[in-house]
């Protein structure tokens, strides 16, 4: 490979690494700036995914001209793949637990379809319980 080509690859790699690092920095700032759990989730799981991918791409480009025996492009691809697949799982669990245990600020939500749905379900459940009680009373009365 010619020298200029390797140099060009180097520059692309450096740009990718820098962009990735910047996105991760942005994610950190977002963590400090946002007030509640749900909005913080966005920054914790997100610009960071793209940031990580960019860093991995940068590393992969750096690895093309160099032979290493420790790790290779395949390893980087695996890192990216499993990050993408597992981040949503952890994020979903955190969001769900946070929501269900009431650790969110409702005044920050403009529209909340889930709260409506949960209220609806609770109402239906209460209705069913009341129905059951009434039936029991009726049964006792007939006895």
């Amino acid at each position, binding site marked *: 490979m010619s020298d200029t080509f390797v140099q060009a690859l180097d520059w692309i790699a450096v740009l990718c690494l820098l962009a990735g690092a910047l*996105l991760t920095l*942005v994610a950190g*700032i*977002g963590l400090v*700036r*946002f*007030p509640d759990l*749900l*909005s913080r*989730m*966005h*920054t914790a*799981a*997100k*610009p960071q*995914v*793209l940031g990580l991918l960019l860093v991995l791409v940068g590393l992969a480009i750096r690895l093309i001209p160099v032979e290493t025996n420790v790790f*290779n492009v*395949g*390893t980087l*691809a*695996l890192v990216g793949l499993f990050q*993408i*697949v597992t*981040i*949503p*799982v952890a*994020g*979903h669990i955190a*969001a*769900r637990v946070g*929501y269900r245990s009431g650790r969110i600020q409702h005044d*920050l*939500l*403009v*529209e*909340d*379809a*889930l*709260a409506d*749905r949960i209220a609806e379900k609770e109402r239906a459940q209460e209705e069913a319980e009341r129905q059951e009680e009434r039936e029991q009373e009726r049964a006792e009365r007939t006895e």
Partner: protein
Amino acid sequence: MIEPSPPKSIRAMGLRRRLGKIQISVALGMTLVWMLLFDAFQLRPESLGLLLLGFLASVAIMLVFPLPPIKPGFRFWPVQGVWMIVYITWKMFVASFQVTAQIFTPGTVHSSVISVKQRTGSDLMLVCTAIVTTVIPGSVIVEVGQAERELFVHVLGADTEEKVRNAEKDVRALEERLVRGLGTRADIAELEEALASGEERV
């Protein structure tokens, strides 16, 4: 006389049941991961051994930890699949910049939790849509209603009716791309049907 030992036959039956749980496609996927881990995609004699060893290891893993099969399964449609990957990558870039802009705009950021109904019945498509929605910045899955096929998505910065509708449209577009890229024929037919009836309603 003592009965011919029954535990042995039970064990054999258990083994046969477990062997039935082996899915070749999943085993091949695990072999691929193994090959990537050991950098086996090079022309050298060890690669063949690594391939064999990886396949044996994945079969052994499936024997020890049997899992239920992925039922309707998926298939990769080359053209739509590539288009899907490009679409997701593009969305990730755009949305990353949007979230970055939101972080640096002063003032409180208001959000919404919206519910999006899925148009396909496959669990795998539901999971894929949920994962990709979460990976794309600005939206997090809060809750999944599996029975109602509904995703509850927390959208950052959606403080007007219009933005909420747009976010809903985005998730629906994403589902369409995923089903067209990875769905089985039945999934795609279901989606087409929903699209046709939806257009009639509008």
